């Protein structure tokens, strides 16, 4: 609907109708129907494709609409505040999602290991069921699950690629802060350069992570099926890597908007939202580096 609205600081913008929410619901349903069909073997893996194509469309169209409205000056400070609060609570929900997997990691390390090894009242279980298994972390369990016939596997040493990746992500945290300060002072060129540096560092991280996965799968015998260590390792780093990828794509979008002249020193919610998200991804990585790779 083409209306020309004068920007009005007193008016909280409420769109009068929008097709994207219902389109979004159909999209998520299609993605999940595709995933279910694939997992149940009803359809080949291409059944995932329509959902993901629609998903890309969802982001392009819905965010496109919001960007247009934002550039048309429809959003007053109250709307801006709603967006900020919304983003913060969204990040909090993400923190809790990762907390579930970190919780599983800590539970497995500090409770399951000693119990399977016969601590306390679990002695008979240990002797009768698990053949005197003595667990130390990392472990692939009493049955030594994994791809190798002898049940062995190796872990990724913390001081190799993971240390480099830590340095990369921490650096990207600095570059995005420099970009933010440049935006606040109106230095557009510096903004563009450091933003680009940030997403390039992000993609580098993803590539290195993929290399590490390849190494783990082909040479270390470390796979999703390598017992509880493989499970927690790949699920935690995998979801993190997915978040880095999404964050880096978001940074690219912000960069394109910067090149188009969007954002002012006073109004740049989208930039800040992505920056918060990036810092969140950074902090999660520090947890991973310490508890998954290092300790």
């Amino acid at each position, binding site marked *: 609907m083409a209306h020309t609205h004068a920007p*009005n600081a*007193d*008016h*909280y*913008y*409420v769109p*009068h*109708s*929008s*097709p*994207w*929410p*219902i389109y*979004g619901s*159909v999209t*998520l349903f299609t993605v*999940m129907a595709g*995933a279910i069909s694939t*997992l*149940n073997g009803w359809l080949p893996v291409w059944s995932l494709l329509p959902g993901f194509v629609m998903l890309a469309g969802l982001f392009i169209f*819905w965010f496109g609409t919001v960007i247009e409205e934002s550039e048309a000056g*429809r959003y007053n*400070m*109250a709307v801006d*505040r*709603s967006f900020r*609060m*919304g983003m913060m*609570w*969204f990040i*909090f*929900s*993400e923190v*809790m*999602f*990762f*907390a*579930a997997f970190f*919780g*599983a990691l800590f*539970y*497995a390390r500090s409770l*399951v290991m000693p*119990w*399977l090894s016969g601590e306390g009242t679990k002695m008979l279980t240990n002797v009768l069921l698990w053949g005197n298994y003595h667990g130390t972390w990392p*472990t*692939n*369990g*009493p049955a030594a*699950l994994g791809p190798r016939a002898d049940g062995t596997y190796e872990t990724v040493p913390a001081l190799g690629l993971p240390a480099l990746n830590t340095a990369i992500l921490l650096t990207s945290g600095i570059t995005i802060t420099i970009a933010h300060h440049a935006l606040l002072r109106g230095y557009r060129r510096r903004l563009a350069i450091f933003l680009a540096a940030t997403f390039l560092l992000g993609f580098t991280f993803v590539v290195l992570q993929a290399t590490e996965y390849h190494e783990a799968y082909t040479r270390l015998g470390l*796979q*999703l*099926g390598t*017992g*509880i*260590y*493989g*499970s927690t390792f*790949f*699920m935690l780093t995998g979801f993190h890597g997915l978040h880095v990828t999404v964050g880096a794509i978001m940074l690219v979008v912000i960069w394109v908007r910067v090149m188009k002249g969007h954002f002012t020193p006073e109004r740049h919610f989208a930039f800040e939202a992505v920056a918060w998200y990036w810092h969140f991804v950074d902090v999660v990585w520090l947890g991973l580096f310490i508890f998954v790779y290092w300790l």
Partner: protein
Amino acid sequence: MAHAIDTAHDAHDAQPAAGIKRWLFATNHKDIGTMYLVFSLIMFFVGGSMAMVIRAELFEPGLQFVDPGFFNEMTTMHALVMIFGAVMPAFVGLANWMIPLQVGAPDMALPRMNNFSFWLLPFAFTLLLSTLFVPGGAPAGGWTMYPPLVLQFGDSFPMLIFAVHLMGVSSIMGAINVIVTILNMRAPGMTLLKMPLFVWTWLITAYLLIAVMPVLAGAVTMLLTDHFFHTSFFNAAGGGDPLMFEHIFWFFGHPEVYIMILPAFGIISEIIPTFSRKPLFGATSMIYATASIAFLSFIVWGHHMFVDGMPLSAEMFFMLSTMLIAVPTGVKVFNWTATMWRGSLSFEPPMLFALGFLFMFTIGGFSGVMLAMVPADFQYNQTYFVVAHFHYVLVPGAVFAIMGAVYYWIPKWTGHMYNMTLAKTHFWLSTIFVNVLFFPQHFLGLAGMPRRIPDYAVQFTDWNMVSSIGGFGFGLSQILFAIAIIQCVRGGRKASAMVWNDAAPTGLEWTIPSPAPYHSFTTAPEVH
């Protein structure tokens, strides 16, 4: 700062869009609230018919109507549908309708996301209910989805997981919207402590939702990868532990229990003062009590798994922390009672439901304290005593509060009064039958009848028959509820702005006409 909506100067935008577009493309909090409430009512009847199947099968010992597998599908689906399809969406619908009206906001803070959260639900439940027709049947291991049993389901397994994911996404978005609306959209002068109790309880509920729905998402994702991608989260052979699922699940599950009751507390705190013609006794202590319950809800999950294997010290901790919850809950019950003390009471349908809530929720609360005791729970666990307990807090608790809220606010929504006699009949039939239905289940449980079993020993027959008769009666009585609502939507005596004139209810929602105009508080009211 004055709120007003951007579209207010376009005359045609003041009216809803024509036809189906109004609902598919909705951004208006009243339209979306209506959709949530209608959806919830439909799910209430769907879940209710499953309960009727259960009660029919349990009318007599032996197997009469369904095979045991289908019976288990019914218990599992009844729970999932009622929790995620009926109770939670009903509260979100009430939040959508009432929070903007109660805080003086033009709409919810994020109107498009609002519609997204709603429309995910019909798709999620399409997915969930269609599991009844796939090879292997619907999930049948209980709504708690414990592994390893849940990992043995057929084609329904990934459908269940993804349906839960969709519900979770919907709940998280809905909760973010509620929090942002409350924190950012209040009318000038409405300080936090001046907010109505329904708004306060929803603020805290929304916080709980955002904190625990992602944990549920994580838990079911681990189930999915254990089933399809060889992970070992819940497999002891690989160093995991099936018990770990219970810990993660109930870390979600216990706050979830309060997600279903805190908004009910808010509703009761609105209704009782109105029909007592007195302000709520101890309003501030009500807020602190709600916040304490929310905090405690995070550290009591172990009481769901006392018999499943836990160190004694953990059992003691969970027992004591659980019993602590009785303190803030007691504060609430006493405050409601004190509000009525020397009040000028009248017994319109909302007040009847609130009083029913007060008595029967308290029964459920007491049996909860009994279950919290570890040694006693060893006896009660997995019996009908547990079923009686949580149905007392959920049916004459949460569901009665929802019905009370509908009877309290529906004249504001439709502009019509409903048939009072019909509504009172609905209340009395529901109250009688709900006790006939669930009270005998205490006796059955104490006598040792296990839950989730389609057959039972003959000595349990009498009370099961009584319970089933109560069940059918309660189910049929709800048809009166649907009739009362439909009549009220279609017509009836005109409601005034204040609706309950001689009770003179307080709150911003009573300052606007009935029915509430399509766009309300386009300019923010001043609150003093």
